[in-house]
């Protein structure tokens, strides 16, 4: 009984260890897939950060264009959400700057716009962004896209 209990305990410990190991691995893997969320609306930043963290992605935030570029230089993300209407360099300018830099042109950039007009879509494409999402959006959809993009 004791042995059995011990076995079971050992097994449980082992299982727990494996489980922990796989979780750690996944966390390590995720930590390589960092996402930078840039928007001047703190609520938006908060909601995106929340869901991506929940899905195991490492996130960073910036509330204006200049801060976003500084954050990219500090630690290069794999994916970037970029609001357009921001003070101190708008989204187009940030996107253009990053896409024309050989070091950062491989960052996947998703533009976020609250205007949703054709003009913005064209401008977003012209600034060589990879994708364009109009507010309001579904966080689940965002997560799905992030999974697809980052594997």
């Amino acid at each position: 009984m004791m042995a059995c209990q011990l076995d079971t305990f050992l097994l449980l410990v082992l299982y727990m260890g494996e489980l922990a190991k796989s979780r750690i691995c996944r966390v390590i893997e995720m930590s390589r897939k960092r996402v930078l969320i840039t928007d001047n609306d703190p609520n938006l930043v908060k909601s995106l950060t929340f869901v991506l963290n929940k899905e195991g992605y490492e996130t960073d935030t910036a509330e204006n264009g200049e801060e976003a570029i500084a954050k990219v230089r500090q630690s290069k993300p794999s994916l970037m959400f970029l609001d357009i209407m921001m003070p101190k360099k708008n989204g187009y300018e940030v996107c253009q700057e990053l896409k024309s830099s050989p070091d950062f042109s491989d960052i996947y950039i998703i533009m976020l716009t609250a205007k949703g007009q054709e003009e913005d879509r064209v401008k977003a494409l012209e600034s060589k962004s990879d994708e364009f999402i109009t507010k309001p959006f579904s966080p689940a959809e965002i997560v799905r896209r992030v999974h697809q993009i980052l594997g």
Partner: protein
Amino acid sequence: MNQREEYFKSLIENAPDMIVTLDVNATIQYVSPSTERVLGYSPDMLLGKNVFDIVHPNDVTRATNTFSEGIQTPAYTTSMELRVKHSDGSWRHVELLANNLLHEPSVESVVINYRDITEKKHAEDEIRVKHEDIEVHAHQLEAANDELRHTQQQLLNAYEQLHAVRKIDQLIVREKNPKKLIQTACNIISETRRYECSWIVLLDDARAFGSVAHAGFGQDFLTLQDRIRTGAWPACAQRVLQEKTPIAIAIVASDCGDCPLTEKCSQRSAFSIRLQHSEQIFGIACFSGPGNSTPDEEERALVEEMAGDIAFALYNIKLEEARHNTEEEIRAQHEDILVHTYQLEAANDELKHTQNQLIEANQKLRESEEKYRALFESANDEIIHVNKSGTIIDANKKVTDIFGYTPQEVIGKNFVDLDLINPNQMPAMEKAFSNTLQGTGGWGLTELESKHKDGSTVYIEASISPLHKEGKPDGIMAVIRDVTERKQMQEKVTEYSGQLEQRLEELQKAYEKLQELDKLKDNFLSTVSHELRTPLTSIKSFAEILLTYDNDRETEKEFLTIINDESDRLTRLINDFLDISKIESGHIQWENVELEIPKIIETSVNATQSLATKMNLQIDVSLQPNLAHVFGDEDKIVQVMTNLISNAINFTSEGGIIRIFAEPLRSEVSIAKPEFVKIDVVDTGKGIAPEDQEYIFEKFSQVGDTLKDKPPGTGLGLAICKEIVEHHGGSIWVESEVGKGSTFSFTLPSAEMAD
């Protein structure tokens, strides 16, 4: 026929003229029987003989020449005189008419009619002798000073006496060439019965051998000629040259010496004679003839005469030459004169032409002057001529139209004295005058103010130019035009165009404003979309998060609060959009009731009190007593107040004070009567930078970089306040200093005034 032939034969045989026919060789074929009567030959004696056998040796050459020439030409006819030998040996003079009928089939011979003229000749000789006597007599009688007529008379006489002499005379008188003359003379002399040979040598001025001619001597003469050339004259000639008598004649024969012609000369009667005319010796002539008879006085005279004739002819030729030369000179002179005359005529023509031109020019000048006078008088402009001292010399009648003076009133007066020009402009005018006179510049069209005779103002336009006399400016011509009407028109036009420009500017501004409005509208829509989507995004996101993930109670509450706040914000936004849209589009029903300012302020403070308390702020209200009432929409004015107070609360740090003042705003004109009520909302917030102050009343112009700094406004509050205040006839503004706070003030017209 026989009868008829007999008849003709008898006619021919008894005719005074004799007939001989010859064949082409001059052989006698037929001789009329009458020949025997005249020449002593029976026809038988002559038939078959050559006709020239019986012709005198001296005439043979001439006869044969004529014959051979005549037979060449069918129907050739000629007449001549020659000597024919009688059967007894004497010579008979005959006159013949030869007719070439060789080509006439019925005749085929040369037919010669001839007639014995010996008797006639003798008779002529007799006449000549007699005439010579008369001639000698006449010669003596003739005055020595009329040598020409005398000689001519002699020649005339000689013509009658001797056919040959006549011929000489005729020929030599016509002959102009001395050489030809002497040769012709020689020929003629040789043709005479008496002299068969002759030579003539001319002497030039140095008495040297000159031209030479001869006849009858043949080759013999050439030897003599060579001798003479060397100065070895034959003896006869030497003697003749040495004779001192006016006309020297040597009768040769006896002393010919070694003369090569001795043989021919000695057997004959020969003369050497000087060819002399009035002491001028032209040459020497020598004649010799058959027979040894000593020449008689008559012959001498005849010879003398012939020599004289030849000399005279030579003299004449010389004279003629001299005359000719003179004539040439005269002609040359004449031509010179002609040339001069032409030149003079040409010069004269030129002068005439010039004179005509001058006359014409003068005429033109006069016409031109008249034309200019007419132009001057009929000109539309006033033209004034002023001399150097300023006196008006001339003025056309236009002066009356412009200045009211007649030309007579101004002419002779000094320009300055007339007081035509505004005194202000006089110095400039005088300067222009002197500049024009000095040639250092004039006046183009210049507008001047001048005075009419009646004292009214006339605007004129004048141009000044110098008038030159002898190349120097001597006076001034001013052309003046009345531009009063034009000036008035111009002023009107300027005024109108100013108005138009202003209107245009207004339109331009309106257009620009419209464009701006259009752009603003686009921006507004774009901004509205942005502003609405932002809270919606938060609501949507957090709602989904709450539905998707299991969260702890606290997180759920936090997210639900966000959803709640964002919903409120969305509601405010929608309300504000509707407000401003209604106000801007005019689709709003404004209440217009009498309102008390204190009550409005109280309502507003109550509405915002909870927010202030929450932010730990104090609201201090300070009102002046007896504030005037205002008319308006209570809710809207409260909205303005609450908006301003809310802003003040939002921008003021915790523990601060919001102060509210209300006071009447008295106008400077009427102190007694307040026209507006002014309300101030003063905060101790961070203040607004001057560059932002002008924008804050525009839509969506919140100050601040991020939403973190930003209070939960919509960015439309101040724009709505502005619309409301301005709708009530008031105004709204801000005074602020960064770091110290802002004062938002607005005015409303007081109710007393609104009455």
